[in-house]
């Protein structure tokens, strides 16, 4: 069994869908961290059956919008003095900007310099987003 109080001060990203831990690990560039981090894959979960977990022994700014977009079921546990001081449940963000790119070659984002790719949530149940410029439909698939 995993024990979150092994972290003194930092965060635990919990209830990550199995297989998504590595994607989040890479997105947060934790492979380049100079502090203690741990990626636990396929841990036993009462809620999910299996889950990934990331433990970070440091105070870092995390883009909750992006994490919510990647996996809205994630829980963030904030740890101080080895105890959980805050639990943050994520949800799908209404808007996603500058995180994923529209893949429609006919979209204006494919040709304009410096354009920020923007997506709007259109279906919360299916996690579907729409490019705000060309209306192409997307969902997070890693």
């Amino acid at each position, binding site marked *: 069994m995993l024990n979150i109080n092994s972290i003194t001060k930092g965060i635990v990203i919990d209830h990550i869908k199995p297989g998504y831990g590595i994607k989040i690990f890479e997105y947060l560039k934790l492979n380049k961290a100079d502090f203690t981090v741990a990626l636990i894959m396929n841990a036993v979960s009462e809620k999910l059956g299996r889950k990934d977990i990331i433990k970070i022994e440091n105070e870092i700014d995390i883009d909750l919008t992006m994490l919510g977009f990647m996996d809205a079921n994630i829980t963030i546990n904030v740890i101080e003095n080895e105890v959980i001081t805050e639990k943050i449940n994520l949800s799908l963000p209404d808007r996603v900007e500058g995180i994923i790119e529209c893949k429609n070659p*006919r*979209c*204006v984002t*494919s*040709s304009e310099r410096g354009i920020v790719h923007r997506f709007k949530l259109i279906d919360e149940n299916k996690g579907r987003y729409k490019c*705000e410029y*060309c209306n192409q439909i997307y969902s997070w698939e890693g």
Partner: protein
Amino acid sequence: MLKGRHLIDSQDFTVEELDQIFELAENIMEKPEDFIHLCDGKLLGTLFFEPSTRTRLSFESAMLRLGGKIVGFSEPSSSSVTKGENLADTIRTVAAYTDIITMRHPKEGAPKYSSLYCDVPLINAGDGGHQHPTQTLTDLLTIKVAKGEIANLTIGLCGDLKFGRTVHSLVKAMSRYANIKFILISPQELQIPEYIKSEILDKKSIEYVEVERLEEVMDQLDILYMTRVQKERFFNEADYIRLKDSYILNNDKLKSAKEELIILHPLPRVNEISMEVDNDPRAWYFKQAKYGMFVRMALICKLLGVK
């Protein structure tokens, strides 16, 4: 209030706002001489990043008939795009010179993106296969003039329903009016996209049927909206040859049609409407082109706030 607004998507305006535009367009049609000085001193920028002679001339005619003037280009080779200027800079510069801008661009979403940098009204004159809202205004005004109202109608959409942006916009726009029934006439390969059915027709419980043969539904139609079946869309030539003649509208096929049917087409026509149909009083496609100019006149007036 439409003054200062952009028109990027045909759904940008409410039904009531569309009614204001159509009412003004009908007033202009009735007595155009009353409107010839309405835009005196106003300048329309026509930014056509790809050629579209018909739409550009319609906008230019509209502004000139209102007493305004025009500046712009009709292809990117005659603009600073060839020097590598980005769209945001182009639009900011032209917005500084003009009172209202209309833009045709091959990239989908280009007018939407440009509108973020544009402090004068921007009208989307077509962006790739995405939107063409003033064509939709044209279609709706023509239907309103012909039928007296945009409601209680059965509209047949025939041809390439898969890739036809005018069809998609028209279905979206007409689905906001009461008691509209759609008959979608196309080969299997060119049926209307699933998202139009699920997100518009099914969601709003709008009645529709899909058929392959025009003849079997002709007698039910109040409006027949023809589009071109494009050979290049078919996976094999045999299917194209099998179906292409089904959608060439001729006098023989019109025998079972209602007397009060109107035939529309966004133009340009290739061969999907036989020229013999042009003399039929039910052929409204050239009138439709004229209404396109009037509705653009009304739109320009409303966005400039001069009427």
